[in-house]
């Protein structure tokens, strides 16, 4: 199971990639494997304030609907319109197919997320 070194993770199988314009958020290869074929994404409007740990959207596969939970608090800067138009692109490359870009409001929360080693350990315990 692919767990890129440079990303941060949550126990809900989301990834976060800090960059020069905030942080991109997506779902991990493990989440994608569990969900199966992804067919629909519901994402918040830019400007939406997210609360860490609370649902901000949903990802829907043929089998099931799952909430997306905000890894950290912040303001939505941008959503990835390309994956909304083609949800299957998340199945193809979950680490390239980011869902939203966020401006974290409490940067220390980013540092508190799991690193690749801790997330790998969580998967191995699952």
């Amino acid at each position, binding site marked *: 199971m692919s767990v890129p070194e440079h990303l941060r993770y949550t126990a809900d199988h989301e990834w976060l990639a800090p960059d020069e314009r905030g942080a991109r958020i997506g779902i991990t290869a493990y989440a994608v494997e569990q969900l*199966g*074929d992804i*067919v*629909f994404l*519901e994402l918040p409007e830019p400007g939406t304030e997210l609360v860490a740990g609370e649902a901000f959207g*949903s990802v*829907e596969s*043929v*089998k099931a*609907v799952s909430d997306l939970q905000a890894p950290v608090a912040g303001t939505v800067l941008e959503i990835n319109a390309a994956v909304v138009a083609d949800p299957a692109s998340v199945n193809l490359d979950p680490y390239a197919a980011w869902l939203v870009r966020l401006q974290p409001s409490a940067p220390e929360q980013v540092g508190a997320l799991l690193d690749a080693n801790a997330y790998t350990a969580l998967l191995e315990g699952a």
Partner: protein
Amino acid sequence: MIGAGARSTPLHAEHANAALVNEKLRSRWETFACTVLDRSRQTALIALQGPRSEQLLQSVCSAPLTPLRHYALTTAEVAGIPAAVARTGYTGEDGFELFIDVESAAALWQALLSLEDAVQPVGLGARNTLRLEAGMPLYGHELDCSTTPYDAGLGRVVKLDKPDFVGAGALREASIAPATRTLVGLRVTGRGIARHGQAVFGHDGDEQPSGSVTSGTVSPSLGVPIAMAYLPPRHADAGRELWVDVRGRRVAAEVVALPFYRREPAS
């Protein structure tokens, strides 16, 4: 699976219903010269489904399959394993269901998988999209203890002219009563996927739902979200626009004829 006496009649209940069916049979068996054996735990079921299932199964089946009609049952050896072979399934495709002793299940599974690469293990998620595309009602979704066969579009399977049977009186009444709800197909035209239990509204502004979704998914064959729902007959005409409450959002949908997808006729 439930078998009865020396002249045995196998009865296969949907897994979720086996305990209920067993109980209902046991509550009535004393009026008949028979006994009910619950064979559920000794019996396994493997389904081989798809347009080529007859050809593939025939290569390892001792009984001729071409004469076996849909919904008919025969006994045979399949890959040397004694089996009850039924031309049934819940995929909307041609196919067979093989009832075998649990001890033989793993061997039969391996024998079928090794027929050729085209034979693949498929789970209930895929089965569910296929039966939904075929417009087939499923217990726990379109069917429950409050549904009549007429509600669900299954009136054709009830033979009211047979000698008396359990429920005959109630079904005679239901067969002539004006329908209060009918099972329809929906194609979601807005952005979203309708799912089991979601409310359906006749008009966007309605506060009272007129019905509810019983099953919904994205159809792999059609590439669009489809659903089945119970609606009052006045909302059930093909082409009618309706709204589904998808987790707090009203999403537009259109009534369409069932089935959503029909398999190619056998050549």
